[in-house]
C-alpha cells in the first residue's frame, strides 16, 4: 500500500486532517534539506512535498521562484536530490512527493526518473504544468512503479474535475485560487462551494493549497477538506537567514502551530 493512502487512512481514524508541507530541495543547501525534512516530520507534518528546483517555475510566485533560484545557484542536480531522499528514508517513513515541472522529468528521461524515484522511496509526483490531456506518456510508467500522479484541480476546472479525478490516486490537490503560489492574507474563492463541486465528482481525499499562510487560515479551511498544503509561508521562514539551528526551531514551531489546528 502506498504511504500516501496509509497516511490518509490513519488520519481519518484519528479524526485529523493532513498537514502537507512544501520545501524546495537544495534551499539553502541539500544537506540542510535533510535536516528540514526530519524537523517537519517531528513537528507534525504528515506528507512532505520536495520541490525540484527549476529555471522556469511558471506556477510559482516570487517566494518559491527565489527559493528555486537559490537551489539552482548551489548547483543542485536531480541525482543529489535522489540521494538525499534515499538518506531520509533510512530515518523516516513519511510520505514524500516531488513537486516537479514536466520538462525536468521529460529531459531527464521519464522512465529513468520514475525508476530512480521509486528506488529511493518517493510516493508521488505533483506536476503543475501537466494537465490531464498530456499525462498519457507518464501515467503508464508511473503505474508501473506505483508512484502516484497527484491530480490537480482549480476553481476554474468545473466539469473537468470528473475527467481529472477519474482513476486518480493519492489525493486531489485543490488549488484554492486562480493564481500562482505565494502566502496570502485571505482566499477570495468561495471554498465551500468549490469543495462541494469537487466532492460531487470524487471520493478521494482532498487537500487545499496555494496561499495558506497562518494557522487561522488553515483552521477556517480544514472543515471543507482532508488536508491543508503550506508552501511559501514555510519557505519564507527557511529563507530568513537565521543560523541553522534557529531556522529549524522556527520551522518546527510554525509547523506545530499549523498541526495543532488540524
Amino acid at each position, binding site marked *: 500500500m502506498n504511504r500516501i493512502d496509509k497516511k490518509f487512512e490513519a488520519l481519518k481514524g484519528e479524526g485529523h486532517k493532513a498537514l502537507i508541507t512544501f520545501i524546495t530541495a537544495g534551499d539553502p543547501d541539500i544537506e540542510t534539506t535533510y535536516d528540514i525534512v526530519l524537523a517537519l516530520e517531528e513537528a507534525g507534518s504528515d506528507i512532505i512535498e520536495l520541490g525540484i528546483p527549476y529555471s*522556469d517555475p511558471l506556477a510559482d510566485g516570487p517566494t518559491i521562484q527565489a527559493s528555486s533560484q537559490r537551489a539552482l545557484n548551489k548547483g543542485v542536480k536531480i541525482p543529489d536530490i535522489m540521494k538525499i531522499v534515499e538518506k531520509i528514508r533510512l530515518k523516516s517513513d513519511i510520505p514524500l512527493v516531488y513537486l516537479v515541472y*514536466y*520538462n525536468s*522529468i521529460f529531459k531527464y528521461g521519464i522512465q529513468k526518473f520514475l525508476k530512480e524515484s521509486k528506488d529511493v522511496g518517493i510516493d508521488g509526483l505533483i506536476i*503543475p504544468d501537466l*494537465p490531464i490531456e498530456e499525462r498519457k506518456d507518464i501515467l503508464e510508467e508511473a503505474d508501473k512503479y506505483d508512484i502516484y500522479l497527484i491530480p490537480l484541480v482549480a476553481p*476554474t476546472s468545473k466539469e473537468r474535475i470528473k475527467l*481529472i479525478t477519474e482513476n486518480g490516486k493519492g489525493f486531489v490537490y485543490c488549488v484554492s485560487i486562480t493564481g500562482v503560489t505565494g502566502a496570502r492574507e485571505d482566499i477570495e474563492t468561495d471554498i465551500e462551494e468549490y469543495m462541494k463541486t469537487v466532492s460531487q465528482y470524487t471520493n478521494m481525499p482532498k487537500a487545499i493549497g496555494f496561499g495558506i499562510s497562518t494557522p487561522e487560515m488553515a483552521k477556517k479551511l480544514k472543515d471543507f477538506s482532508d488536508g491543508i498544503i503550506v508552501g511559501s509561508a514555510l519557505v519564507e521562514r527557511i529563507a530568513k537567514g537565521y543560523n541553522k539551528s534557529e531556522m529549524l526551531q522556527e520551522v518546527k514551531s510554525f509547523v506545530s502551530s499549523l498541526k495543532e489546528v488540524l
Partner: protein
Amino acid sequence: MNGRFGRFGGQYVPETVMNALIELEREFEKAKQDKDFMEEYRYYLREYSGRPTPLYYAENLTKKLGGAKIYLKREDLNHTGAHKINNVLGQILLAKRMNKKRVIAETGAGQHGVATATAAAMFGMECEIFMGEEDIKRQSLNVFRMKLLGAKVTPVKSGTGTLKDAVNEAIRDWVTNINDTFYVMGSVVGPHPYPTMVRDFQRVIGDEAKEQILQKEGRLPDYVIACVGGGSNAMGIFYPFIEDKEVKLIGVEAAGEGIETGKHAATMAKGSVGVLHGMMTYLLQDEEGRIMPVYSISAGLDYPGVGPEHAFLKESNRAQYVYATDEEALAAFMDLSQTEGIIPALESAHALAYAMKLAPNLSEDNIIIVNLSGRGDKDVNTVAKVLGVEL
C-alpha cells in the same frame, strides 16, 4: 493529440487555464468562419496598418551581389513598424468578441508590446506589458512608446530578465486574472491554440507575397527567407508556400557571437526537444531540462525556444534552419541602409545576412524573397553603441 504538429505543440499549462484555452480555441474557430469577423480584421489591416505591404524589388542590392533577384516583403512599413501588428489586430478583435476588458502581452524587442499597446489604445482596453529588465535597458525607446500609448510596462526581474521570463510572468498574470484578461501572445509559441492562431493571423504576409510575386514575375520564388526567434514572421510568410514544394523555405536563427561560443540563440542548431511555455518544441536547455541563457544582439531573437510548427517543419525537412551571427547581421544592416535606403530591424537583418550570402552563388534567374519583418529605428542606439558612436 489536439494542437500537435507531429510530436510538437500541445498544452503543458497549469490546470487553471485549461478551460480558458478550450474556450479560446472554440471562439477562434467560430470567428474564422464568421464573415463579419474576418471582414473587420481585414478592414483594420488595410485602413489602420496600411496593408498590403509592398513586395519591393531590391535592385541595387541585387546588382551589388550579382546573383539571384532579391525581393523584400516590406513588413517594416506596417503601422508600428513591424509584422507584429497583423497578429495583434486579430487577437484584440477576438478579445473584444469574447468581452475581455483587459489585455496582457510579453515583449522582447518591444515591437509586440508596442503593437499590443497601440491596438489596446484604439479599442479602449486596459493593457499591461511584461518585459524583461535587460530588454527594458536595451529598448528604452519602445518602452517609452508603450507608455505614451497608455500601457503599463511591468519589468520582469526573475530568471535572466529577458523574453522567456517575460512570457513566464505574463502566464502567471493570466493564471491569476483568467476571468477578465486576454493574453495576446506575440509569436507562434505557447500552448495550443496560440501557435495555430498566431500563424493564421500572420499568414497574410505569405498570402500577399505569393500573389505579388506571381504578378511581378509570373512564377513562384525559389527561396523564401525569414528570421526566426519564436518564429511568427517566418511562419506567416512560409505557411502559404508549404504545399509549393519547389519553394525552399529558410529560417535564420541568431548565432550571436557564434554557435560554438555558447552565446547565441540558435535553438534549432544547438537545441534539443523539451517543454517550455506550454509547448513541446526545440529548446536550449541543459541535461536536466533547465533553460539556458541565450544571447543575440537583437532582443527579438533571443528566445530559448521556437514555435512548434517550425520544429515540425525542420523535422519533416520541409524547411531548413540556418543562422547568422551578430557581426553578419550588423553588416547586412549597414548594407541595406546604404544600398537601398532602408534601415532594417536587427532581427530582419539576420534573414538578410543569409540571403546576401546565398544570392551570389545563385544564377540571375533565381528569385529570393526576404521577409523584412521590421524597421530598424528602434535599433539605432544599439548599433551606434557597437560602432562606438555617441548619440
